[in-house]
């Protein structure tokens, strides 16, 4: 049976089309499955004005047999073999003759019962109930009402077409009765179209300038872009987000090539691209990494036969570029350092003070970071950049194009003649903007970006704001991920607890929460984010738990630890070693602190273990300090054979208290050493499933 659904709407935002189609896909597949309707073909299609589901299914549900049980046999059948009133009542309720009842074996014993074959319903009948419920259940980031009553959707629904094998599947939703009509492109073909089948639907819509398949529209756009640019031998500056958005924003794509006066090419490429993309959703055109004075736009039109669409877009873009040029000329008149003074009047966060306060803190944090990360040679530049990095918030350009914050500061600093280490740092200090964005490429950029993010996190946590569930005020998660990404990328070793102490001391008494609490919350928060990043990189959760077991000290260290664990995970010695670590842990669980007194070692095995352990301990110390956990680990593994023998031959829980404490002390010392590398007891191995997955927060 062919099923076709089209929800005709007023213009949906591109992101809403995408999420609606994903939800329709999932919900319909689930419903078909749970209703027992086999599906041969299924797809969701659509554009800004329509959401489409099309499926080929079997014509009806399979028949299903149900057993209904009544009273126990002992109650239902009287000693004389006749049926009891209970059995008769049950048969009556089931609508079957009492004689037809069977004895059914159940885990609870023998019961009276009856078998009922419920005839599978025709697919249409099942769908008539499902479809309106599915439509109503689609969720959007933001919804609206447009008629009486509480019903909400992304934008008003105009019509619902729903066909099963060409016949209307009748249902109503919010005052709309499903039918077999639709309409084409509202400008070219607003009249009603009567639809017979999916093929008919696609054909008729194509004639009325609607391409229902997003992939087809995307291909059309790309093909037309190539055609338009062929003679220029240029290409668009790639922008997948924009391409996707546009392919949902139009029903019939028509790519327009336009030009702007060359004088605007003196504007930075960042400004040109932003003015085009954010203002008018235009692609910029580049050749050999140079901006050309052209743009490409995607119109929702059949063609631009009179070039009116091109001319209109050219005029609007020219006005925007003229504005941008004006902003640039105004902005460069005032040096950044002078502008930065104005940050005293811009609030960063009510309790955390102004952006000037922030800039002063950033200078101190950036200075501290450069000393702690072998970056002392760029300390001066990092501090200078930190002091200037927020000044561009007061430029006209950033007020107009907020997404250029940071970048504009960098460009203005460059124009003013600051050294590369300074202007690059300013330019890059918001990076990475998200999970997919690159961290800063320059060392100074990394330091200033880190300072900015840590300052925000500690400050915001310090006044009692926390990220929970889907809410992430002040981008705490994004910032924490950014911190981790920068540290891993630049291989920076920094003690996190100490860094947070430093930032707390810089904040002084500005924070309302007690310093210890802020520190713990921040460290937990970072551990959660780090876990998330490591999992995304494909590390096992138990390895991550083990690596983070010793505590949130140094992020780069934690990375080296988890890498060492992952590398060793395949070695044959790994598993017995892990089991040994767990065994030690178990023995020490409730043990009092012991103390090693080498004179109290009675057996050869424990003396051997002690002396080998002492040597190993000395050997790995420098490795651990250097962060060479892989090597340290492989040496620590050498203690294992001796541990095996120790456990075989020596009774740890000896009767003599002193002997016992001495042995426990030795094991405690070994555990302490292991913990410097990882908490091995967290690793899950075959035959041991006690370790639990961590919470990726």
């Amino acid at each position: 049976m062919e099923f076709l659904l089209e929800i005709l709407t007023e213009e949906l935002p591109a992101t809403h089309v995408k999420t609606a189609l994903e939800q329709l896909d999932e919900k319909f597949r689930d419903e078909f499955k749970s209703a027992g309707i086999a599906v041969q073909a299924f797809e969701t299609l659509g554009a800004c004005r329509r959401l489409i589901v099309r499926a080929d299914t079997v014509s009806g549900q399979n028949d299903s047999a149900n057993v209904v049980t009544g009273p126990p046999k002992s109650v239902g059948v009287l000693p004389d073999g006749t049926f009891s009133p209970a059995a008769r009542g049950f048969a009556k309720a089931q609508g079957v003759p009492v004689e037809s009842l069977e004895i059914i074996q159940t885990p609870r014993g023998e019961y009276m019962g009856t078998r009922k074959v419920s005839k599978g319903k025709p697919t249409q009948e099942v769908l008539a109930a499902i479809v309106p419920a599915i439509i109503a259940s689609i969720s959007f980031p933001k919804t609206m009402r447009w008629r009486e009553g509480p019903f909400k959707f992304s934008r008003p629904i105009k019509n619902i077409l729903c066909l099963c094998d060409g016949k209307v599947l009748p249902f109503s939703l919010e005052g709309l009765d499903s039918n077999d009509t639709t309409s084409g492109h509202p400008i070219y073909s607003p009249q009603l179209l009567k639809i017979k089948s999916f093929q008919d639907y696609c054909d008729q819509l194509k004639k009325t300038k609607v391409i229902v398949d997003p992939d087809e529209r995307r291909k059309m756009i790309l093909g037309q872009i190539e055609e338009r640019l062929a003679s220029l031998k240029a290409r668009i500056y790639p922008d997948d987000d924009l391409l996707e958005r546009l392919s949902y924003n139009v029903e019939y794509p028509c790519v327009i090539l336009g030009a702007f006066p060359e004088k605007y090419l003196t504007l930075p490429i960042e400004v040109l691209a932003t003015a085009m993309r954010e203002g008018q959703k235009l692609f910029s055109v580049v050749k050999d990494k140079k901006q050309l004075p052209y743009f490409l736009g995607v119109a929702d039109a059949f063609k631009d036969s009179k070039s009116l669409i091109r001319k209109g877009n050219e005029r609007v873009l020219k006005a925007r570029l003229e504005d941008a040029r004006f902003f640039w000329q105004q902005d460069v008149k005032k040096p950044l350092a002078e502008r930065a003074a104005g940050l005293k009047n811009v609030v960063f966060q009510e309790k955390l003070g102004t952006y000037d306060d922030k800039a002063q803190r950033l200078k101190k944090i950036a200075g501290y970071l450069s000393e702690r990360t072998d970056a002392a040679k760029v300390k001066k530049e990092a501090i200078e950049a930190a002091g200037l990095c927020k000044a561009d918030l007061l430029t006209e350009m950033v007020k107009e194009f907020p997404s250029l914050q940071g970048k504009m500061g960098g460009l203005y600093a460059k124009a003013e003649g600051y050294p590369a280490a300074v202007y690059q740092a300013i330019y890059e200090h918001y990076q990475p903007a998200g999970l997919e964005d690159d961290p800063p490429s320059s060392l100074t950029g990394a330091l200033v970006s880190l300072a900015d993010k840590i300052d925000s996190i500690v400050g915001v946590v310090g006044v009692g704001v926390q990220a929970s569930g889907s809410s992430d005020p002040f981008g705490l998660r994004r910032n924490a991920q950014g911190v981790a990404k920068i540290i891993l990328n630049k291989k920076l070793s920094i003690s996190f607890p100490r860094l947070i102490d430093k930032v707390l001391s810089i904040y002084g008494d500005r924070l309302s929460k007690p310093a210890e609490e802020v520190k713990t919350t921040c460290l937990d928060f970072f551990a959660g984010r780090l876990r998330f990043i490591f999992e995304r990189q494909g590390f096992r959760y138990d390895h991550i738990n083990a690596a983070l077991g010793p505590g949130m000290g140094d992020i780069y260290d934690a990375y080296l630890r988890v890498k060492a664990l992952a590398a060793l995970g395949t070695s044959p010695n790994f598993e017995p070693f892990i089991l040994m670590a767990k065994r030690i842990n178990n023995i020490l669980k409730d043990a009092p602190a012991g103390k090693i007194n080498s004179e109290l070692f009675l057996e050869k095995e424990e003396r051997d273990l002690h002396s080998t352990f002492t040597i190993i301990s000395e050997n790995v110390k420098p490795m651990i300090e250097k962060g060479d956990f892989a090597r340290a680990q492989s040496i620590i593994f050498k203690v294992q054979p001796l541990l095996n023998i120790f456990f075989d031959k020596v009774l740890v829980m000896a009767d003599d208290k002193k002997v016992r404490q001495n042995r426990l002390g030795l094991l405690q010392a070994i555990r302490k050493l292991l913990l410097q590398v990882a908490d091995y007891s967290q690793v899950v191995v075959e035959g041991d499933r006690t370790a639990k997955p961590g919470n990726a927060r």
Partner: protein
Amino acid sequence: MALQDLILKLHAYWAGQGCYLAPTYDLEVGAGTMTPDTFFRVLGRKPWKTAYVQPARRPTDGRYGENPHRVQKHFQYQVIMKPAPGDIQHIYVQSLSSLGIVLQDHDLRFDEDDWESPTIGAWGVGWQVMLDGLEISQFTYFQQAGGIELSPVPVEITYGLERLEMFLEQKDDIYDLDWSKDVTYRDLRLTEEKEFSEYNFNAADTAMLRTFFQACEKEAVSLIGKGLLLPAYDMCLKCSHFFNLLDARGAISVTERVKMIARIRAQVNEIAQRFTASGRGS
């Protein structure tokens, strides 16, 4: 077609749709939405259709008459229909055709743009309407006004008259527009833009504006107490305008800004509550 012809055509079109053509409201407002013909009429159940020209003052947009696109006062063509007709989008598109725009030759787009006005506790969902990349209208299904959930849902359509006229006349400079056959936008408005930009950014007495703000706020509270809701609302509009002037003078910090807007909104919400509770909108 001169700007006044555009207004005449829109009047003819929307009168034809059953709209009452309201006279311009006689107070400074930042947008047509704030005028009583919109604000009070969208509350409650009583059907309402209106269209009118409303000057909108946005002091910070002043450019001393030197920018070809930005002015501190512009003209909006405001349409309210309550309840929103089922085919309102089509009705709107037809209004463009009635201006002589052959839509098949253009790219008309409804671009996601949700609107809100924190000052009057209002928000809605809809689009900015783009014609060949130029924003010519704002199209909004009101969801709330004065903090009150609206039912039935009204639609608000706001045409930017100068934008639309620049499109129709194919001109790049707002001051080159023809208001009538003999009078240009420059003749009418250039001096005004220059003088008001100077006033908004430099000359306005901020101490006086603050006093005015407080006095009007106080008066609003007192008038609400007396049940004089329309005059009370006027006082809120005045507060909003004084606030905008203070903002243009750079006299308001970010936190103060939020607080002052919240103060106006509190009065406006109170007015809307009482207006609805008294059954005046039904």
